[in-house]
């Protein structure tokens, strides 16, 4: 796979001196779903806005499909569809007209058959003649997506697509995103819902304080940073961890009713078999055993806390 979007040493200092981006390097692979995670004010929206042309960068460069976003802005922007965070729509216009407008704006001639396809895909077809103001919040968000897709983009930016959206619609949205990916569209979404990144992303980028902390394959990230816990419930509580079990670095829980063993899922030997034997050798009787995998959220909180 090759990079379809490439940012190098990208910086942005706003008037007033706020440094929103502090030298961002980022390669987005063609056809992937990349989730950009980060706390509020981390620079997610500034990064997207810069790539899309709404914010002038202070330094560095960005290419989209090989075109520089400044020198080749027409070619670069034609490839991009943007779904903004806020619901920004002309309230009194009909759905179909706002979508026709978007298509024209990106330099494409009318093609109502294609627009119909998009509207049907987003379950908006029966609303095509409704005025935007008459639609529900979720419907408006779909209209924004329809606008972004109206010019057949190869890259779709979704800035917090499911903020304030109910669970049902969020799942719908994920289906739409997966469907687009299978059509070959590269998708970049920002979110602070970790579960969203976990559910649909191929790769995860973590941004904090204007810097990209890491970009990694999601499963690999989970594997590398994901720690798993083995919780051993005991028949009878222990006052302290028996000396014979010191090497396993166990922690007592529930007043000694349970012992917790932390291990790395990525390593060849987890040490579980040895631990179980050692437990019975120490004369402990097990009542129950359970494991818990750390979520992306826990990884994320750990990462942001550690680096900032």
């Amino acid at each position: 796979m090759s990079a379809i979007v490439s940012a190098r040493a990208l910086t942005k200092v706003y008037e007033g001196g706020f440094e929103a981006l502090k030298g961002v390097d980022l390669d987005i692979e063609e056809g992937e779903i990349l989730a950009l995670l980060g706390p509020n004010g981390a620079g997610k929206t500034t990064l997207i806005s810069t790539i899309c042309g709404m914010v002038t960068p202070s330094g560095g460069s960005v290419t989209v499909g090989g075109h520089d976003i400044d020198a080749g802005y027409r070619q670069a922007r034609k490839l991009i569809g943007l779904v903004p965070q806020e619901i920004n729509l002309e309230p009194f216009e009909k759905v179909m007209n706002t979508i026709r407008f978007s298509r024209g704006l990106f330099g494409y001639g009318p093609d109502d058959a294609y627009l119909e396809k998009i509207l049907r895909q987003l379950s908006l077809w029966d609303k095509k003649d409704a005025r935007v103001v008459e639609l529900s919040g979720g419907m408006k968000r779909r209209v924004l997506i329809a606008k972004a897709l109206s010019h057949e983009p190869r890259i779709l930016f979704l800035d917090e697509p499911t903020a304030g959206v109910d669970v049902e619609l969020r799942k719908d949205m994920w289906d739409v995103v997966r469907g687009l990916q299978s059509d070959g569209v590269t998708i970049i979404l920002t979110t602070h819902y970790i579960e969203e990144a976990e559910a649909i992303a191929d790769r995860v980028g973590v941004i904090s304080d204007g810097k990209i902390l890491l970009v990694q394959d999601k499963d690999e990230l989970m594997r590398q940073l994901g720690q798993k816990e083995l919780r051993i419930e005991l028949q009878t509580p222990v006052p302290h961890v028996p000396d014979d079990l010191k090497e396993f670095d166990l922690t007592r829980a529930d007043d000694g009713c349970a012992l917790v063993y932390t291990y790395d899922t990525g390593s060849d030997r987890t040490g579980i078999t040895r631990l179980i034997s050692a437990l019975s050798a120490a004369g402990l009787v097990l009542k129950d055993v359970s494991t818990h995998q750390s979520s992306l959220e826990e990884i994320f909180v750990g990462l942001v806390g550690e680096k900032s």
Partner: protein
Amino acid sequence: MNLHAIKAIYIFEMSRFFRTFLQSFISPVISTSLYFVVFGAAIGSRINEVDGVDYAAFIVPGLIMLSVMTQSTSNASFGIYFPKFIGTIYELLSAPISFLEIVIGYVGAAMTKGLFIGIVILATAYLFVDLDIKYPLAMLAFLVMTCLSFSLLGFIIGIWAKSFDQLQLVPLLVITPLVFLGGSFYSISMLPPVWQTITLFNPVVYLISGFRWSFFGDADVAIGVSLFAIGFFTAICLAVIWWIFKTGYRIKS
């Protein structure tokens, strides 16, 4: 040149105009009729003639200018301010479109609306007075130039404005007074000499005078001066827009 984009902006803007068509159409007809009743019938019956022209006919060019200038300005300023206000400007900024194309789309639509209103008022005037336009082509050219320059001015105001108040400020506090004091309803030769001189600092005088010349072949100032004035005004507006384009003033961070 992204012609599809210009067309898309133009159509989108015109659809706003057609949504409020009755209002766009009826309000100039009513206000023009009122002016004719008040100025033409009531006052005109005591004035009779100005510079050899029937008073009711004399005010027609001024009336058209009054509406065309204020409407072109407010339509163009609203057209570009509204996307800023509701946030849809993001789409313009992220589209493969140059600032020039944005200006052509918005200003073109505002000009069309201004032109439409001008023609509606002219048609309404025919109901009240006998008009014989001496230089119809020149009249049309002046009308188009006025629509263009004031739509450009409106576009600048729309970019500059940060609130609806500011949007109203210039049309209300600058353009309307200048048009009223610019000889819409009188010939500046009717003023005392001191005021005649002061009036010459009002740029609108030259526009109305030139427009009136195309109707009656007679004007307060020489037609060449009028042409220069409107050309100069348009050039200033274009220069300001070019500067906005260069700096991204109030549209891009």
